[in-house]
Structure formats: C-alpha cells, structure tokens
C-alpha cells in the first residue's frame, strides 16, 4: 500500500470498505446476459444528462419571453451548443429506452420477487421521478408543444376531487402556464429532481447489494458458497463486470452517436416538429401528442371517454406496476422455468404496451385509412381498438394474480446452480 493510500485510509477508514463491498467484493452471478447491461447504461445516461444539463443551464434563459430564443441561441451561436443540446435530448429518449428494457428484464427474470421487492419499489419511484423530470425538461424550450403539453398534463390534476382546480393553479402559479410555471419547472428540473434521482439510485443499488443480484436463471447464488463464504456462481463485480459493462457502453455510445450526428430528431420522435414553433397560448397545435415515451400512458387517458375515469386509469396503470411483487405469487422467478401462461401473458403485455404507444403517438389514423379505406370512421375504430388494448393492459395484472394465487401455473424444475457453460 502506498504511503498516500495509507495516510488516506487512516483518516477515512470507511471509504476503502465501501469500495470493496460494492466493487471488488460484490459477487454477481456469472451468467448475466444482454438484459443486464441496462442498469449500468442507465447510470451512464444519468451522468450524461447531468453534465450536458449543467452546460445547457449556462446558456438557457428561464423566462417565457426568453426561453425559446435562448434555445435557438444554443443551437446556432454557442460553440458546440448543438452538440450539447442533442446529447441532452437524445439522452432523454435513450434513458427511457434503457429504463423500459431494464424494467422488462425485471419482469422476465422475476427480479422484483422476494427478497428484491424493495429494489423494485425504489426502481418504480425512480421511474416516477424520471417521468416528472422528463416532463418538466420538455416544457423548458417553451415551444408550442411544450406549452400545450404543460397545460394538458397540469390540468390532469383538476380531476382530484374537491380541491382539483386550486391544485392546478397552485402548480402553475398563474391561470395559464407562464413565467411562474417555467421558473419553478426550471428549478425542479435542474436542481431538485436530479438530487432526488441521485439519492434514489444510491438507495436502489444499496438495496440491491444487500440482497445480491438476481440472474437469468432466477436462482439464488448465495445458496452455494465456498469455504470462504463466496458464492460458487459469483464473480467479483470489479474487474469482471466493470469490463463487461464497458463493452455494452461501447455499443450503446455508437448507437447514440449515430442518432446525435445523423438523425437527432428521429423523424419527430425524439424532437418534435411542433416544438420548433414558439409557444402560443391562443393556438393549439393541430395534433397534440406527447413525446414517444409517454405515449402508451397517454393513450390510456385518451381512450377512456370520461375525464375522471381517464385520469384514474392513467394513475392505475402505473400503480399496478408498483404492486407486481405482491400480485405475482408464483414461486419460480425466471421466465425460463415459468408456465406457458406467463410467457404468453408477458409477450401480450409487451405488444399491448407498444401498440398503445402507437395510438398515443397518433400513428393509428394512418393505419386505419390504409386498412379500411379513406371513408373509415377513424374515431370509432380507433376507440374500439384502443379500449381493447387498455383492457388487455390491466388484464395482465389480474391474470398474473389469478394465475399464481390459485396455482394454475405449471412450472418447470429450476436448476440448483446457474446454467452457464463457461
């Protein structure tokens, strides 16, 4: 040990232990597959958002009069401003791609089950905060879609009984979104929510490392340890997984670079056309649609012909995810050994989520016209299709409980040890 390291450790004895516990002596199952890249990628994107965000904040003006122009200024006049902004906007969309895959991995391998319920719950809190963070960030450029998106989303809260309208005014700070709204969203987006996110990520990993990682076989590696107490199927996170994750980082960054340099708006999905028009409080954009990562939830809201119930269904669609660890009573974790019913239900759930996203992104009218001809009654067909999807979305959770609670699931035998060949 070098003299400096010794000097340091004598004065901060905890740090070395923390490093060991979470890096060199954290034993992760040796059979991680591709789906296990997304946790570390999410951390990478979080760092990217914070760093590029800090630089954007140096040039951005948080006022209704100045915001839109300051974004144009960043794009045109600030040296490399376009790069910093595109890294931030692409990062936002990539964040959700990564997080949706990360969550889907949890559903595939039963990572939300005992003893990892808390890891899942903290993850869901992260997801909620992330949605708030993305929404507020989207409002900041004060384009017309920003403005109307803000108005629609904030007005959702008017569905709260008794004091709904007061709540809406309280959030906006005026009667229509304006300076007060933009200022507080800026403060929350750049200071408050990132701090909360960082804290939650620390808790997420703390909770995970306490119980240990799950793996694609869904077996607990802590059941078989060598005489030194190290799991037989575990390998040290550092250097083995740090290096493996580095490969994932390389591939991921190549994809991001292609987007940033060749198609930063991704056909209007990552950056929307209507947001290159300044906010106008008297004219709604011709079609209001949210950014793609909110569109499945937005479709649930839109398909229900009642404001109160629509907002309730929207909230329920997220609350249901929180409850998954308690809805799923099945003893087998990994999809590899679960009953056929679960495999089919999870596949349908993923497809339904995707199709709801297509409705929310307003892709369906085009499909309907091409299938049923130009005179088709778009609204009726879309509503029928969409409402079936909404029912299927919730049916997944009901099915999950019925299937596992009443013992309908026919599982396959789970191996004692992980099934890696290496």
């Amino acid at each position, binding site marked *: 040990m070098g003299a400096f390291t010794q000097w340091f450790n004598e004065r901060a004895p905890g740090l070395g232990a923390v490093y060991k516990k979470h890096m060199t002596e954290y034993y992760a199952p040796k059979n991680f597959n591709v789906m296990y890249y997304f946790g570390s990628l999410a951390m990478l994107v979080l760092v990217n958002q914070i760093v590029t965000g800090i630089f954007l904040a140096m040039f951005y003006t948080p006022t209704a009069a100045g915001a839109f122009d300051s974004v144009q200024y960043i794009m045109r006049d600030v040296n490399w401003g376009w790069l910093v902004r595109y890294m931030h906007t692409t990062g936002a969309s990539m964040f959700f791609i990564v997080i949706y895959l990360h969550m889907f991995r949890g559903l595939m391998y039963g990572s939300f089950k005992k003893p990892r319920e808390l890891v899942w719950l903290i993850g869901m809190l992260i997801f909620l905060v992330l949605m708030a963070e993305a929404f507020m960030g989207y409002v900041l450029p004060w384009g017309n879609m920003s403005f109307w998106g803000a108005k629609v989303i904030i007005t959702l809260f008017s569905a709260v009984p008794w004091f709904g309208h007061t709540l809406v005014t*309280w959030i906006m700070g*005026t009667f229509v979104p304006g300076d007060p709204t933009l200022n507080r969203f800026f403060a929350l987006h750049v200071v408050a929510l990132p701090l909360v996110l960082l804290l939650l990520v620390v808790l997420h990993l703390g909770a995970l490392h306490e119980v240990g990682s799950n793996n694609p076989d869904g077996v607990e590696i802590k059941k078989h340890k060598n005489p030194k107490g190290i799991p037989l199927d575990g390998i040290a996170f550092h250097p083995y997984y740090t290096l493996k994750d580095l490969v994932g980082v390389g591939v991921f960054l190549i994809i991001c670079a292609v987007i940033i340099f060749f198609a930063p708006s991704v056909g209007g999905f990552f950056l929307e056309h209507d947001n290159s028009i300044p906010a106008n409080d008297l004219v709604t954009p011709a079609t209001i649609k949210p950014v793609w990562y909110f569109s499945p939830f937005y479709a649930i809201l839109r398909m229900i012909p*009642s*404001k109160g119930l629509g907002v309730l269904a929207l909230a329920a669609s997220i609350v249901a995810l929180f409850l998954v660890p308690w809805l799923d009573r099945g003893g087998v974790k990994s999809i590899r050994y679960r009953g056929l019913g679960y495999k089919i239900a999870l596949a349908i759930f993923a497809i339904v989520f995707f199709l709801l996203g297509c409705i929310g992104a307003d892709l369906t009218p085009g499909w309907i016209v091409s299938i049923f001809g130009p*005179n088709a009654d*778009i609204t009726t067909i879309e509503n029928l299709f969409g409402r079936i999807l909404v029912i299927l979305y919730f049916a997944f959770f009901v099915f999950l409980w019925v299937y596992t609670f009443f013992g309908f699931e026919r599982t396959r035998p789970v191996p004692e040890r992980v099934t890696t060949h290496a």
Partner: protein
Amino acid sequence: MADDSINKGRRRFLTASTAVIGGAGLIITAIPFVETWLPSARAQAAGSPITVDISKIEKGQMVRYGWRKQPIFVINRTPEQLQWLPKQDPRLRDPHSNEPQQPSYCKNGHRSIKPEWMVLIGICTHLGCVPDYKKKVGPEPFDPDWKGGFYCPCHHSRYDMAARVYDGVPAPLNMVVPPYHFVDDTHIQIGVDPKGAA
C-alpha cells in the same frame, strides 16, 4: 450519588414530545414554502375586462380575442346553424346547460344573450386545449354526421354550435361562457355582467 437506572417512561415521553413539537414546527415552516407557489400579486393583477367591436364579423365567421390570457371566441351564427341546435339535443351530454358553465342569463337553448352572437371561452373542458371551429356541415373523420361546431384536436372531444359537449367524448362539460354584455349593438364587453344581472 449515581443512579444508573433508566426511567423508560420518561425517556419515551421526552422522545415523543420532542418529535411532535419538532414535526409541528416543520409543518408550520413548510406552509410559507408551499404558498410561494400560489399566484403572486402580479399574476393576480393581470386581467381586466376587454371591449370588442363585432361590427366586422360576418355571418358564420368566428373571431378570437384574448382575455386573461384565455382565448375568447365570438361567432356570428347563421340561421341554419341556430336551426341545428335543438336537433342535436339527444346526442349531447348536457343539452339544457344544467351545469353552471354559463352565467344564468345565458342558460337557454342557444347559450347566449342574443341568439346569433355566441361568446365563449375557447378552452376544452377536458384538459384545456383550444378546440377548432369546424363550421362545415357534412361527414368528418371524427363524426360521420357532423352538423358544425367545435372539435378538439387533443383527445377528439366534440361540441355543437352552442359549445355544448357531445356524449361519448372525454370532455365532461360544455365550454364556459364568460360574463359579458352588449355595450351597444356593435360592441361587447367581456368580463362584466349586464346591468341588473348577477
């Protein structure tokens, strides 16, 4: 004289009372911070009545004004448009305007003071978008039997020519008619009730 015994009851009382007093203090301190988010004096001051000249609005035409940063629609309805109104009643959610979405002097079949002049706040009662004025009668993608009215692009809510909401759309209520009165035959003041009306 050293007494090492621990008075548990007293310890619990002190812990609990400290927590309660501290918690109360925290809540009281939070109130000013929560209330900073309410509309400031400046935000509240914005918004006095406006007077508009309606002499140039042609039959069937709609003109937009801004009042309290909200879009005000003024429409000069044609006799045909008025004639469709009662026929829409069975398709509407609140055909008789029973919900208080208009001043009492506009709770009538045409939701206005003078039948031809429709004045309304052009904000969808679903989530606050500004609906489009679609006056053309005939089949529309959103309604094969369209008789003219307002269509909200956000979540496809529909309203008739008196801004009454159709059944089976997300918007729950008819659009709001603001307080207004006729200053003379060609001027409307928005934001002030007619004399004598409450």
